[in-house]
């Protein structure tokens, strides 16, 4: 099943035919590779191209929201060997947008990457694809073959003199390989561990060469931006939050799935598109940007619009756009236990605070959930997160700490109840009712 609903379909225009619409001829039929052709035939200057992307205020769709045009402009002009890398290591719990993007419209990513290669002067690119979505990797390889056969990849593309080739590389499922420098290490055949920065990838990236790394959705947006113009793209969204964005809505909604909406769309609208709360139950909390983003209570998120600035103002992050919706049947302690286990499992083990702290957090939350909490545990958790945040090479320690802090901050009484009464505030029977959703056909 492909797309469910959009406002202003852009990235998802090609999804309508589901698995039947991904191939090159379908992509070309809907105007694909036209922008690449235009860029090459008009011999657009690299500076103009980057300026256009800057104008769109396209911000990185992987989670950090860094302006894409600015990132491209950091690439040293004179370097003889440069790379473009696409991060399809979509590992953030709750996120499943890049998977569908690669499944239903892989050529938009390929076109975006070729144009990016042109813009930064790279002759080769890699797409690092999450190892647990192997079908997607295989489809991407097929799409690459098609693009190569059609002359969009390889030497002297479309007779322009510009050469660029693109390679798919699949990982094995480590979350940390989604961190851009961990990803580079992994492509190089090493253990996926983030590098200390600086130097940043724009100076010392893949194989030590200047490298631009963007998210899949970011690359996919490029042809559309060039098609409509940077300004028009920006105006789709709101100032400083250009364009449309894919949101992966999961949890206790009637129609979970991917939704493309303009930046700045009210959360309430997104919830409505996802069919509203399942069973008409009350919204309890939402993690708006993937599991690393701080949780927001239902009433807070209902006042937010879905864009970087609004969510940040509310105290969380838009992140990768993974909206995890939780209703009143959820025990927040149990939910946090799951999240903490994830970070404990996925820490790469390099930096002391993360390696040791992520396990400590999980064990304490696990104890509380299992009726062995102690009154001092909440202070302890806050102190441990304090000691982890901002003290490591990459942001995984922060990602492990944010859920803990925000869950305790917003749902302290639930944690206290758990510790005191050695059981959930939310009746187990109610919890079972909530999880009934996951049974086929239930609604």
């Amino acid at each position: 099943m492909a797309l469910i609903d959009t406002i202003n379909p852009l990235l998802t225009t090609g999804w309508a035919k589901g698995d039947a619409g991904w191939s090159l001829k379908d992509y070309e039929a809907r105007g694909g590779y036209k922008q690449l052709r235009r860029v090459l035939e008009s011999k657009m200057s690299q500076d103009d191209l980057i300026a256009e992307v800057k104008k769109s205020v396209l911000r990185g769709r992987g989670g950090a929201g860094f302006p894409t045009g600015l990132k491209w402009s950091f690439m040293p002009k004179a370097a003889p060997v440069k790379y473009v890398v696409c991060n399809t290591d979509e590992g953030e719990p709750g996120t499943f947008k890049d998977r569908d993007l690669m499944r239903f419209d892989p050529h938009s990513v390929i076109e975006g990457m070729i144009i990016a290669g042109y813009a930064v002067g790279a002759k080769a690119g890699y797409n690092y694809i999450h190892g647990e979505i192997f079908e997607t990797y295989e489809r991407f390889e097929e799409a690459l073959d098609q693009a190569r056969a059609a002359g969009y990849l390889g030497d002297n593309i479309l007779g322009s003199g510009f050469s660029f080739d693109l390679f798919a590389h699949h990982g094995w499922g480590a979350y940390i390989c989604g961190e851009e420098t961990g990803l580079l290490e992994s492509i190089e055949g090493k253990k996926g561990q983030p590098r200390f920065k600086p130097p940043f990838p724009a100076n010392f990236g893949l194989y030590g060469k200047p490298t631009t790394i963007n998210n899949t959705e970011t690359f996919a947006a490029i042809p559309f931006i060039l098609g409509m113009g940077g300004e028009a793209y920006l105006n789709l969204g709101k100032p400083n939050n250009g364009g449309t964005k894919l949101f992966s809505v999961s949890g206790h909604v009637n129609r979970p799935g991917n939704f493309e909406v303009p930046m700045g769309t009210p959360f309430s609208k997104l919830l409505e598109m996802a069919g509203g709360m399942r069973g008409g139950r009350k919204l309890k909390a939402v993690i708006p940007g993937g599991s690393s983003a701080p949780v927001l209570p239902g009433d807070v998120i209902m006042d937010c619009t879905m864009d970087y600035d609004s969510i940040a103002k509310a105290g969380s992050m838009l992140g990768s756009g993974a909206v995890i919706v939780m209703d009143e049947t959820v025990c927040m302690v149990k939910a946090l236990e799951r999240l903490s286990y994830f970070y404990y499992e996925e820490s790469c083990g390099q930096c002391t605070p993360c390696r040791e702290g992520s396990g400590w957090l999980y064990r304490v939350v696990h104890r509380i959930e299992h009726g062995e909490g102690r009154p001092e545990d909440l202070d302890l958790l806050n102190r441990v997160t304090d000691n982890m945040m901002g003290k490591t090479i990459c942001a995984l320690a922060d990602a492990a700490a944010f859920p803990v802090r925000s869950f305790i901050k917003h749902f302290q009484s639930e944690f206290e109840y758990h510790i005191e009464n050695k059981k959930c505030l939310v009746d187990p029977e109610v919890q079972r009712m909530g999880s009934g959703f996951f049974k086929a056909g239930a609604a």
Partner: protein
Amino acid sequence: MVEIEIDGKTLQVEDGSTVIEAAHKLGTYIPHFCYHKKLSIAANCRMCLVQVEKAPKPMPACATIVTNGMKVFTHSDLAVKAQKAVMEFLLINHPLDCPICDQGGECQLQDLAVGYGESASKYEEEKRVVPDKDLGPLVSTDMTRCINCTRCIRFTAEIAGFMELGQSYRGERAEVMPFIGKTVDTELSGNIIDLCPVGALTSKPFRFAARTWELSRRKSVSPHDALGSNLIVQTKHDKVLRVLPLENDEINECWLSDKERFSYQGLSSSDRLTKPMVKQGGEWKEVDWNVALDYAAHALRDVAKTHGGAAIGGLLSPHSTVEELYLAQKLLRGLGSENVDFRLRQSDFSADGKRAGIPSLGMKIADISGLDRVLVVGSFLRKDHPLIAQRLRQSAKKGAQVSILHSANDDLLINLTARAIAAPSQLPALLAQVVKAVCALKGASADAALSALAVSAEAQAIAQSLASGSNTGVLLGNFAQQHPQAATLQALAGQLAKALGGKFGFLGEAANSVGGYAAKAVPGAGGLNAAAMIKDPRQAYVVLGAEPELDCADGAQALAALQKSAVTVVLTPFKSQAMLDYAAVLLPVAPFAETSGTFVNTEGRVQSFYAAAKSLGDARPAWKVLRVLGNLLALNGFEFNSSEDVRSEALGSQTEFVSGLDNGLSLGALNLSASAAGIERVTDVPIHFADALVRRAPALQRAADSAAPTARMNAAMLSRLGLAAGDLVKVGAGGTANASLVAQLDAGLPDGVVRVAAAHAATVALGPMSAVLSVEKA
């Protein structure tokens, strides 16, 4: 230069320096674990977090590059809070088993925990347990203590040259381990013990032997190769229990080879001779010193009187101290003999009398690191000179071009620029080709003897590399010095260095390869050198510290000569069956660490040391034994009260470097003809067989580098001889001399050679190190 401020103190540091380097310059200590000045930056332990003005988060001092005007606070609230946080994390899964941990008392984690840790842990969950690993006979593991700083991993990859350790698994389950089923076999493995900031990697031989605070410490000097590594010898109750590197950037930096680190175990060998012994009526008897010394003095005097002084030969180990060598030669000369030599494995002495001075490295050891083009001639470099190989490995990484010209192609773990590998007899011609090609490239005129030579592609490649440099060095290794045309190789190396405007010299084989010359332990006019005095057997021998059957170029001939002698006086720390067979008197002398003395290392540096422990049993320092022998023989000039007195007489007032070093040689016309016909022997002296002490160090003898000798050949040789690797073969050297060895494939060997190690009982019978051998299936 940039100006920065650390804790209010301003200083200038070089561009590109890190904050921790700048702080160290100021004498400000920043706590750290993963940082090590000789290793790459990992920035993973996070202990060195400091506050940097304008940075929102604490920054790792080890990885943060200074910028002009940067203000760093190492003790601010933010910094200390971060450091204490990291310490707490480090300790939650650390076993805190300090009372039973060998690292206790010298543990970086323990030390820093005093400053940055709490008195009690708030961690009350289950602690991690990590399975131990088998890293071989030298390094013991307690991996539960590991804090994953990855220093050991980086050491194997960066310093030792091959990544034998890595980190497997993720997060809290991350483990440092070797490749599955493998051990850590580098000749530098012991350094990971020093590098480990906790008790995860400790010394297997030292394990549980003593607490660090019970040990007495003495500075000393390594008695093995001629690098002269500086040591700290640690003893308890007059027994050496551990040897550690004493940092000296000019020599060994902060490293030691395993041989230097673990050979002390040989001091406790059951072979130690603890009482003087004399053979009476074919029976060995333990006797008092005065009896033994009288016996020895009388026997030597009798031979000298009856047959003349020249009937006595002195075979002196190059691992002896300057004082010992000096007194031994003085004694022999006092008896009227000029037959004295310490160059036991040398076979070509044609340079004697033609040298301009004492042969040495020809530069400082530290200068090696500055060479931009290097040619190593005839050397099993990694095993013969592990720390010089290490220096060249680092140079090559920084862009220096290193090439080798040799008869084997062992992996030096150095990124080599060019290599020329040929049978031993071809080496002089091959080196001559390099000389000729360099002369052509430099527009210099080459030696007339080279005019007919055709330059091979390999020689040309080496020449091109050398000629493109501005600071070149040619280093002659042990194999070149033991080569039957060693003098020719030296002359050619000299010509090459001259054409390049570079330096050349010898990588000394033994602790006193230079000191032996300075101590005059070489034959004088009319005297016989080491090879000649065993080829032409003497009536009597004085053997000092050597086991001639293993330490001489032709062990079989040495053994035969000694067995034929009327009197052999052996001054030795160890007894062996061979000695009991050929000797008349065994005088127990103190080995390394039990005597004071001096080694002059390969660069000519004079390094004296005190005894670290009392001599075992009745053993006495050899310089005292020789002094008394001199007195008993009523020789003049043996009135010494201390080893310092001996050194003063031997070396004069030269305190830092000996004078008279000069690699110049006037050899006359070069002879490049190759005479070998048949299967040539390529002989290495394996690292752990090289001297009497290391041969008796049990842990080292279990290491991978101590494998029994085999008959190594390339694939073409094996197939031509109808052999397969693993076959038992009979290796013969003519007559009845032969050895049964296992055939082994060594793809790096040139055709027409068989490589058989020396200095091992299994191959003594084969005789000379350079020879033509027969090989057939057994």
